[in-house]
């Protein structure tokens, strides 16, 4: 035993997940986003999460709208199908695809412009429907791809490079989603590797729509002094609600937890999200309180992060429609074309 441990190390085998796949198989194309863009960090966290959870990349479907953020699905999970649609319409496209094939793991990436401006209608209605989808907003308070106009999540008082000052109330997509009935709502920061990672794992394990609003600074157009979506600002004003860790479905619970300060949420697939409360009294199962807390945070200029709300049992659109377990898309003809007798009966009823 001692000998093996002291022998010269064999060339390190790449780490593989439970499917035996190395992380390379979860990577995508080379990013064309700016060096340092928050979106790139999020891509990394996303692909790691699918790798960690051992989800076959072929079972994942990626969706996005238009924007720098919406380009990012090209930069992770190259072995997954992707649908990069038009501006603001990711929710509808994802809805259609995931109804057609409910066995897919859907992940949607959008921007704050894509979601909170042009896409607001679809966002609201997706939240209501609770479609099983991980919905990531890469939120930089600005339109990156069109070169730096304010988006609707820009905080009032936030200053653009050119000097323009945001003067309208900022839309808080998380507060909206909670109010609209969403089942899993969280906020994080592209620079907080640990928190974002835990939330992404949990989001993937969740059964319905999991909204993650991730503050993701735009280094080119909105990372300066005066911006409230800069790395510096978010670091200074981040108020994490919990310290989070994700426990996969198969793992035993090994840590003890102090009652009252640590809670656990059991997710759809049996995995658990463990929350060590940093803010006493915050209970992410109380819809109205969560909205109120978020509204307070917004008024105070805090960036409240962590698991904001969760209801693992909220019925999803797939539940409501009672879909069969297999994909509708590939049901055999005999299940989708009724027999001749049915047409005969229809004809008879019209005679």
């Amino acid at each position, binding site marked *: 035993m001692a000998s093996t441990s002291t022998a010269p190390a064999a060339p390190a085998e790449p780490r593989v997940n439970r499917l035996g796949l190395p992380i390379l198989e979860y990577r995508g194309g080379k990013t064309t986003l700016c060096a340092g863009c928050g979106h790139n960090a999020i891509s990394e966290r996303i692909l790691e999460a699918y790798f960690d959870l051992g989800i076959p990349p072929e079972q994942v479907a990626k969706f996005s709208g238009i924007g720098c953020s919406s380009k990012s699905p*090209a930069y992770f999970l190259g072995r997954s199908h*992707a649908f*990069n649609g038009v501006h603001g319409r990711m929710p509808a496209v994802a809805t259609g695809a995931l109804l*057609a094939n409910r066995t897919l793991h859907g992940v949607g990436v959008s921007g704050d412009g894509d979601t909170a401006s042009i896409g607001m209608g679809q966002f609201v209605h997706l939240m209501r429907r609770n479609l099983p989808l991980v919905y990531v907003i890469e939120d930089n308070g600005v339109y990156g791809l069109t070169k730096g106009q304010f988006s609707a999540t820009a905080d009032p008082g936030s200053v653009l490079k050119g000097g323009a000052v945001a003067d309208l109330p900022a839309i808080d997509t998380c507060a909206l989603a909670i109010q609209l009935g969403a089942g899993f709502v969280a906020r994080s920061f592209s620079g907080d590797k640990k928190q974002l990672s835990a939330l992404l794992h949990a989001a993937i394990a969740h059964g319905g729509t999991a909204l993650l609003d991730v503050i993701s600074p735009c280094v080119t157009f909105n990372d300066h002094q005066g911006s409230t979506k800069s790395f510096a600002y978010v670091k200074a004003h981040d108020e994490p609600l919990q310290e989070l860790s994700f426990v996969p479905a198969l793992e035993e619970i090994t840590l003890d937890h102090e009652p009252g300060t640590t809670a656990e949420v059991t997710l759809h697939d049996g995995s658990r999200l463990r929350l060590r409360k940093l803010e006493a009294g915050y209970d992410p199962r109380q819809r109205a309180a969560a909205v109120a807390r978020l509204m307070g945070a917004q008024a105070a200029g805090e960036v409240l992060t962590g698991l904001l709300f969760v209801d693992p049992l909220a019925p999803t659109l797939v539940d409501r429609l009672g*879909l069969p377990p297999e994909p*509708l898309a590939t049901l055999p003809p005999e299940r*989708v074309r009724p027999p001749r007798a049915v047409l005969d009966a229809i004809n008879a009823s019209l*005679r």
Partner: protein
Amino acid sequence: MAPAVNDFSLQVATVNGSGSQSSNSVLLRALFQMGIPVSGKNLFPSNIAGLPTWYTIRASRDGWVARKKELDLLVAMNGETAAEDVAALRPGTPVVYDAPLGLDQGRADLGWYPVPFDALVAPLAPDAKLRKLLRNMVYVGTLSRLLELELPEVELAIGRVFDGKPKAVALNVAAARAGFEHAGAFTRPPGLAARRMDATRGKIIVDGNAAAAHGALFGGVTVLAWYPITPSSSLAEALIADLAAHRRGPDGTPSYAVVQAEDELSAIGMVLGAGWAGARAMTATSGPGISLMGELAGLGAYAEIPAVVWDVQRVGPSTGLPTRTQQADLLSTAFLSHGDTGHPLLLPGSVEECFTFGHQAFDLAERLQTPVFVLSDLDLGMNQWMAEPFRYPEAPMDRGKVLGRADLERLGGFARYADVDGDGIGWRTLPGTDHPRAAYFTRGSGHDERAGYSEKGEVYEKNMLRLARKLDGARALLPEPVATGAGAEVGVVAFGSSDPAVRESRAQLAAERGLAVDYLRVRAWPFAAAVRDFVAAHQRVYVVEQNRDGQLAGLLRLELAAPLAGRLRSLARSDGLPLDARTVTDAVLAHEEA
């Protein structure tokens, strides 16, 4: 054109929400059951209750089912419009009317048949609301006597219309009998009469929207995303009923998903998502919805995603006349979206075709990997048409070019947008396909054969030329035009619900002027080669359509070489009413005899 046995048109003028729809269906059915060809058209306002509505039933021993301009009998139930309705009648026309309206004080040259509706229904039901409904069945009885409609057929029809509700049947039969009895005192209007014949045996009566829904049902639709809009809502609603009735497993599990979307942008987005994932997905809408779908329709065409979109056309522009019919979305739908975009159009001309295109549209969309638009209209979609019974689709579904895991294992990979077969159509994979090389990246931005992002000019242009070839190749796959007649000097081209009027007009032209006219009904765009040939074979070709701008003529001009294009004469016109034969005949003659 004097009314004759089994050849007349009668109109019921009433207000909507008054429940006359059932009575009119009974009339229609009774004639149909007597073997007399019929058609029924509802002219209703864009509101819910209380405004004037006219229902017209045409009986035609010759089988003509187009709208007929002249009325041969009026049932005047609506005091508000009665004066105007009556003023438009030809001398001698019989008018059945609500006695208290006192209409006979007006024209002396009409046949007056007062019916005291309220008095007649008073003994039948204590409930005022119910009595209001029953009034309508009274005129059915009255007409039955005046037209010599067989009462047992009327009663059978009442049974059908109030299917499974014995109390309602009994009450309505009583009302009809009261009207029948009351009419015993009347002298029958001369000429007008229904006589049993044998021209409807085996046929069905249905509206185009229901037919389209049935077609989609047998086309194996699995995802329907829709947003309500007149006159397409009844298509979606009929399909929902069909799916609920015929597409659940033994345990009730549905083999479909229906979503009422929040708007048309969302509806088409869902359809594209579903089509991309391999489902047979569709939506149904009308003009305003088509306009809203523009951006995503372009994405569908450029990213090559199967989808079926029904446009049940109504009068535009804008909100227009939502409850009137028109064929004016042709040009904007063919090129819907910015950039060089073109979409195959299917143009059903009958309820039978609403059914067949209802399933074939999926085959075509999946074969061509592109959104296919089916342009019906309010007349076809919401009115009642006689038809041959629907024919079960014998051909297996064509799911198009899809590579599965085994294919990928054999091939080692694939290039999504490579034209391997020379038809401009690539092979696709469905998400979820269990092979490491199955995935590709779908986008509405520039892409190369392997679906990789590209801004290269050559790559872009090559791809665009392939798409043009694909659309060009669609000509051979889409339903061919239907040609009638041969060898005449004059031809007519039309599409969709103009068909019955054009067919009848041909007969008029032949009978009244000895003018032979060949007829080509186009059923799809891009046009088949036969369209060119038809134009080439005629000196003058009249293009009949129900719009202002001559949109079909325009599409023809865009495709035909100049000498042929010069033969086209546009006879485009629309006031929102279904086209009638006389209008076509007059328009052709105005040119021919000029």
